[in-house]
């Protein structure tokens, strides 16, 4: 009998006693040990605590208690989520060596569900980037082609699943940081509705946009992880009070009669190979019984501008806390003001500084109305346009990213070119809506192409039904 490789398969085997959690975790650690030297997905591997936790789960099974829906499932965590006593660096020199004094809510919930954390993954510093090249601790490679980027900012978590190190992982998504790397690495990536998953213990980048979500090798595994981490948390004042889910039925429900929207005024710029797969996705959903309808979202095209004013503005405020006083890096200086400047100048990398400068500029006296105020109004236009589109369609489809994975170094000297990677993913963050990337075949050089499914707020069940239908269509065509 072959050992299960999906999260659902592992959890079922562990709960039934046909496979031990220790074996599941050892298998994951072996793969990481054998191949992560070539990929660089992990910043920290927590082998010792993972073995202890797995043994505890096996003991629970042996004593007749149920360790939970993710029993014994090895999971990797983006290194911007607090893990008590385990380094949490945000891939920044600023937090090198920092040991959080508490667990993020998602971490406690994963443990309650029986998942075993095997390590913390690489990211663009403080989640700012689209290639994972902005990490202070090295570049993560795309498992499909190690000369290419995995996307970002959650590139380590995407690569860890694509390389088969773990069946599932967590990332965070502020403007596409789960979906774009999922697309480029050929895995499923989900950004939930804003407020669906607690942000307590997620190191803040742009608080009105940040959201934690899962990566997985398939849609059903992503649903199980999301169900485990979602739901109200009194520790996050932006957490949605209503219960979340369930999603299980959605995955098998199909798309018969569902209205799938084609955005007629979608910004151009996707490569032909990506566009071809995107068009094939409409065909696949039509074949599965969905109705394809045309909708307009005129303000979609302004998302990039609104985002790159709002996100840096919020970041410049959030990152003011790194002052060398309470945690992390400090550069000694004769007085506090000089210490702040020396610490921040030394501790932050180039892209983080660029965004702090941009955000501080957008918020500064005399420019606030021209930049930040205007961007907040554009944000409203985008939300209103989506609301109108969703009176005609149940979900919308776009490419996840304009291109397949690009070469390492290709865009690292051109911030604007890098920002354009997020054209299709940003509007969902601004509106606070859920969106997911599902692998849908390959484009140039045999590299993965993702298709993005967008849904209105708390529309996860509908979104997962469509994502699962796309996955089934790929299985059927065996592409």
């Amino acid at each position: 009998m072959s050992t299960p490789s999906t999260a659902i398969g592992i959890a079922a085997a562990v709960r039934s006693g046909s496979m031990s959690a220790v074996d599941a975790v050892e298998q994951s650690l072996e793969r990481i040990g054998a191949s992560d030297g070539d990929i660089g997905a992990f910043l920290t591997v927590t082998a010792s605590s993972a073995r202890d936790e797995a043994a505890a789960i096996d003991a629970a099974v042996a004593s007749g208690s149920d360790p939970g829906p993710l029993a014994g499932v090895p999971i990797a965590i983006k290194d911007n989520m607090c893990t008590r006593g385990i380094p949490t660096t945000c891939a920044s020199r600023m937090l090198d060596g920092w040991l959080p004094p508490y667990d993020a809510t998602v971490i406690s919930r994963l443990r309650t569900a029986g998942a075993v954390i095997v390590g913390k993954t690489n990211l663009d510093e403080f989640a700012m980037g689209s290639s994972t090249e902005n990490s202070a601790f090295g570049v993560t490679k795309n498992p499909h082609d190690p000369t290419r980027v995995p996307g970002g900012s959650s590139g380590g978590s995407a690569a860890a699943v694509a390389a088969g190190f773990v069946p599932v992982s967590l990332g965070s998504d502020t403007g596409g940081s789960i979906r774009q790397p999922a697309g480029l690495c050929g895995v499923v990536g989900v950004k939930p509705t804003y407020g669906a998953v607690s942000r307590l213990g997620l190191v803040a980048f742009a608080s009105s946009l940040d959201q934690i979500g899962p990566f997985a090798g398939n849609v059903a595994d992503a649903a199980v992880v999301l169900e485990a981490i979602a739901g109200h948390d009194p520790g996050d004042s932006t957490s949605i009070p209503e219960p979340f889910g369930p999603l299980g039925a959605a995955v098998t429900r199909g798309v018969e009669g569902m209205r799938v929207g084609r955005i007629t005024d979608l910004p151009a710029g996707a490569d032909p190979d990506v566009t071809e797969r995107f068009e094939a996705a409409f065909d696949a959903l039509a074949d599965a019984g969905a109705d394809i309808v045309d909708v307009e979202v005129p303000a979609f095209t302004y998302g990039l501008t609104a985002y790159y004013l709002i996100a840096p503005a919020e970041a410049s405020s959030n990152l003011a806390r790194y002052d060398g006083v309470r945690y992390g890096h400090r550069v000694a200086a004769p007085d506090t003001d000089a210490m702040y400047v020396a610490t921040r100048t030394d501790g932050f990398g180039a892209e983080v500084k660029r965004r702090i400068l941009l955000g501080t500029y957008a918020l500064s006296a005399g420019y606030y109305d021209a930049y930040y105020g205007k961007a907040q109004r554009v944000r409203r236009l985008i939300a209103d346009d989506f609301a109108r589109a969703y009176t005609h369609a149940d979900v919308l489809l776009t490419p996840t990213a304009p291109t397949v994975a690009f070469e390492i170094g290709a865009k690292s000297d051109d911030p604007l070119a890098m920002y354009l990677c997020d054209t299709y993913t940003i509007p969902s963050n601004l509106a606070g809506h859920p969106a997911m990337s599902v692998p849908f075949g390959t484009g140039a050089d045999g590299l993965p192409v993702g298709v993005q499914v967008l849904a209105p707020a708390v529309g996860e069940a509908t979104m997962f039904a469509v994502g699962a239908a796309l996955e089934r269509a790929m299985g059927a065509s065996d592409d």
Partner: protein
Amino acid sequence: MAGRITDDDVAHVARLARLGLDPDDVQRAVAELGAVLEHFADIDALELDAVEPMAQPYPLTNVLREDVVTTSLDRDEVLAQAPDAVDGRFAVPPILGDGA
């Protein structure tokens, strides 16, 4: 949009953000931020006066928790992660100095 970003703007903003930039850094920032801000001129033509600014996507207001006492973070565990601590407190260099 406001006019093109200048060296003085970058130097002022760097000071506000407590970031030290040498003259080369300032030049690079002017060029990079200038190019990004130029791209952002695409929203200049939009008529936005009647549009309500949106700060947060999900409509929740006045979120308050019950006033219940819970355990705090462990003081020693927190201070162990500080760059410097003395007598159960965070320690910093003098507040009044050359830079003040």
